[in-house]
Structures are given as structure tokens and as C-alpha cells.
């Protein structure tokens, strides 16, 4: 798949109506059904948006933008990429001074948990970098992930492999959301740490559960 795939179903070449949220990439990477529940079914969950959003919002309001010598920090930066059809906000974009005229953008994403073993967070950060490149017409080779639990900052280089992964994830997430079909759940260990487990009901929905059997059981006279 190439990144032109989703353009086959956008209404125009650079439609601004078919943008999906950057966060959908991370949701998709974690679990296709989670992505569909949030972005197709629009299941409202305090844990997903409000908590994430509120924390970022508070930070933006409390700390605002600041400058420290050769680093300027912008918070809650609106982002967009028409090429990948993405829209969203960056928690933090640092601008590192290169010379008098030039500042190098450097996205930083704050995560509350601890580093995950897969590309999930890196893909989201890379998507932010691609948005910044498109909006500012500059190269953004690096960014960082900050993990609240470990208080560690991990630098991430946006190499070819990660960029390709990000573009493919964007394509697949677009296809999924445009299809309007929520895939059935596949129960796995990761379900237990998913904030949508109560809405998804992975163990109750799908192969193992039958409403008809349930009714037979309940209707029997005791």
C-alpha cells in the first residue's frame, strides 16, 4: 500500500473534510477495534479524550509558551497534513535555534505511562513531524517521547523505516474509518489495560457468546 490509497475515496485531492485525528494512528496501532470504537462508533469515554485532553489543556494554560535562550517551547500546537490526511495537536513543539533566522522544530509527546515495546508512540510522534514538515516546509529529522512514569525522555529519529510505517498506518486507519465497519474483538492480554474494555466487551461479544443461549438459561423456571 502506498500513501495515495486513501485519496481514492476522498472527495477531492486535498480534501479538508476527510482528515482523521493523529491519535487514531496510535489507537489503530494498539488495536483496530479500539480505533473503530473511538473514531467510528464515537464511543465517549472519560478515559480516552477528556482525561488526555484535560491534562494537555491544563499544561498549555498553566505553562503557556516560553523561551529559554536557544529553545522556544510552544504547547498545544494545531497540526495538519493533507498528504496523509491527518489533523490534531502536538503537546509540545520545541524550536531549537540554529542561527539568527532559523529555528528547528522538534516535537515532544508526553505519555503518562511507561515506554511501550512497539512503534505505537513513535508512529504518533512521526506523524506530528510529517505535519510540521508539510506546514512549515522544513525537514524535521528528530523528536522526543517523554514518559511520565519513568520520567525519561527518549529521542526518536524519524528514519525511512519509521516514516514508511507511519504512512502505512495512516493509510490503514483511513481505510478502516472510511469503511464504517467496526471489526469484531479478539480477546488478548492487552485488553485488560485498555480503557474501553467496558464498552468493547471483548469476552462477551463475538465467537464465545450467544444471546440465544443466555435467554434459554434465564427463562428456565427455577
Amino acid at each position, binding site marked *: 500500500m502506498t500513501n495515495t490509497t486513501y485519496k481514492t475515496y476522498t472527495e477531492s485531492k486535498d480534501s479538508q473534510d476527510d482528515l482523521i485525528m493523529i491519535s487514531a494512528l496510535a489507537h489503530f496501532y494498539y488495536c483496530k477495534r479500539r480505533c473503530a470504537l473511538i473514531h*467510528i*462508533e*464515537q*464511543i*465517549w*469515554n*472519560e478515559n480516552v479524550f477528556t482525561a488526555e485532553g484535560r491534562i494537555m489543556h491544563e499544561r498549555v494554560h498553566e505553562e503557556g509558551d516560553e523561551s529559554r535562550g536557544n529553545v522556544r517551547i510552544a504547547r498545544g500546537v494545531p497540526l495538519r497534513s493533507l498528504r496523509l490526511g491527518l489533523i490534531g495537536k502536538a503537546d509540545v513543539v520545541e524550536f531549537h535555534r540554529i542561527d539568527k533566522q532559523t529555528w528547528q522544530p522538534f516535537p515532544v509527546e508526553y505519555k503518562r505511562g511507561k515506554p511501550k515495546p512497539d512503534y505505537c508512540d513513535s508512529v504518533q510522534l512521526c506523524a506530528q513531524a510529517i505535519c510540521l514538515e508539510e506546514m512549515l516546509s522544513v525537514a524535521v529529522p528528530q523528536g522526543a517521547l517523554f514518559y511520565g512514569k519513568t520520567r525519561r525522555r527518549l529521542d526518536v529519529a524519524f528514519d525511512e523505516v519509521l516514516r514508511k510505517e507511519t504512512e502505512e498506518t495512516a493509510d490503514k486507519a483511513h481505510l478502516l474509518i472510511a469503511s*464504517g465497519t*467496526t471489526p*469484531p474483538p479478539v480477546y488478548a492480554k492487552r485488553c485488560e489495560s485498555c480503557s474501553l*474494555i*467496558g*464498552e468493547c*466487551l471483548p469476552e*462477551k*461479544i*463475538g465467537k464465545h*457468546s*450467544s*444471546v*440465544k443461549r*443466555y*435467554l434459554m438459561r*434465564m*427463562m428456565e*423456571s*427455577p
Partner: protein
Amino acid sequence: MKKHLNTLYVTTQGAYLSKEGETVVVKIDGEVRLRIPVHTIGGIVCFGNVGCSPFLMGFCAENQVALSFLTEHGRFLAKIQGAVSGNVLLRREQYRKADDLAFSAGVAKFILTGKITNCRTILQRALRDHGNKINEQELRNAVMRLNRQLEFFDQEYPLDVLRGLEGDSAHIYFSVFDHLIVAQKETFRFDERNRRPPLDNVNCLLSFIYTLVMHDVRSALETVGLDPAVGFLHRDRPGRPGLALDLMEEFRPFIADRLALSLINLQQVQGKGFKKMDSGAVIMNDDTRKTLLVAYQERKQEEITHPFLGEKVMIGIIFHIQALLMARYLRGDLDGYPPFIWK
């Protein structure tokens, strides 16, 4: 699982609700009487002359806090609705499936199975708990007849046949309802269900509790993105929340009827708390209404194992779970709608 949140009931006439930061403030005669963080409440119900600032209305709409206004006697006046949210694909599916009469009859069957099974459970529990104080023979007979009604459900029927079955079942159940009242028999007598208006104390209680349940069911449906107006068993009628009435069926016996019975049988409400108007309509006084609201809130905080999910949940969250299961069924995740059945 979504947490069960409390509902704030405001019954003091002249109270005014407003928003300060993330809290709801209740003022009476200009004095702050109550501050509640908004994330701890799931709904606000105002009775009678209670005012509310537009900013609080907007805030409630945005934060999925159901805000309704009722008359002092619990008749629905209005509710606050923010921008329509949720999944348009789900609502479309709901409308398409409600247009399909065979599918609608299938949903009606699930709903009525739940309702009639729960009615049967009420009678069986009464036999178990007050076997010596009540007319055992009539109750056993009614249980048997309800069982026969349930046997009909192993086949497909059109909606009007199902409606007939429902009418018969309701008649069987309410014909022995008076036997379930084991205290204060002289002031709480039940002959038949009447509602517009309620003509006796028991019907007055039932009607008021049904209104409370209705409010909760309706907001649960809206929260999951379903349209409360478009039902399957209850066909479209302007001004009537068809799907809310559908979903309510299984809760009538399990939550409302049981609550009314326990208030009477434990003598938490008394005859003097009711008043007969000149027209014959019966209304309740403020204290009785407060007693009822508190009892309803307490009932919603009790824990129970959800029969389909097998998880321990608070009763108050079951409305949301059932609305969610209905949505999942309409979107093709489930092979049927599993009603909440209490045994």
C-alpha cells in the same frame, strides 16, 4: 466499565443552579447551599420552579450530564440537549432496522422475554418471602400462566401478536399485584394499573418511579448515541420516546415495581403522604417525594451481578450497559439483544 454516578435531584422551590469552574453550585435565596464537582454526577433533575444558568446547561450538555426539568409532580417538561453527538452510522442503522418489521418483531421478543421473566421473578420471590401471608394459590397460578406466555416465544410472531401477548402478560401480573402488598393494606390497595392520571396511591407511586427510570433510560440511550424516539415494539408516535419505552420494559418490574412494593411493605411511605384531588387524581406531598428519591438513589447504588456480563455492577449503571448492548446488537456485534433478567 463506566462508573455509576449520582443524580442530583433538586426539589427546593426557588433554587438556582449555576456553574463555577468545574463545580455545580446550588443557591437558595442567594446563599450557596451545595457545591458538587461535575465529574461526580451523571444527571440533574429539577422539580418545579428551579432555575439554571445557561452556562451550566451548556456545561452539562458538553459533559454528558443529563439535565431535565419536571413539574413538581414529576411530569416531564424539558431536557437540555447539546449538539447531537455519537455515531451517525449507528442512528442510521437504528432507523433502517426499525423500518424492518420482521427485525422489529425480533427486538420486541427480546425485550418482552426480559420483561415477562422479570415479572415472573417478582411473583416467585413474593412466594418465597411471604409465602404464609399471601394468597399462594393465586400467585402460583399466575406464575404458571406467565410461564405459558413465555413458551410462546420460541416462534416468530408479527408485532401485533407480540403486543397481544404483552397485554395478556401485563394483565396476569397486575391481577395479582395487590397480593404483593403485605402491609398498610387499607391505604394501599391495587385494583388495576391506571396512569393518566394515577387514581390511587399505588399507581401514583408507580407512575412517579417510572418517570425517574424513564429519565435514566433516556439519557443512557443518548449517551451511547441511539435515538430514544425510534423504537421497535413501541412504534413511532410524535412526542413519544419509543426506544426509551422499549428499553424500559425490562426495568419496570425489576427496579420500579420492587421499589414501590418495598416502600409500602416497609412502611417508608404512608397514606397521609398522598392527596386525592377533586378530579380523582392522586398526588404525593413533598416529603413522600423526597423519601422516594432517596430510596431510588440508594437502590441504584446496590451491587448486583450482571447476568449476561457476569460482572458485579451497581444497579445504576445497568441502564447504560443495556443501552450499550442494544447499540452493539444494532451494529452487528451480538447475535441478539440480551435483556437484563433478574432471577
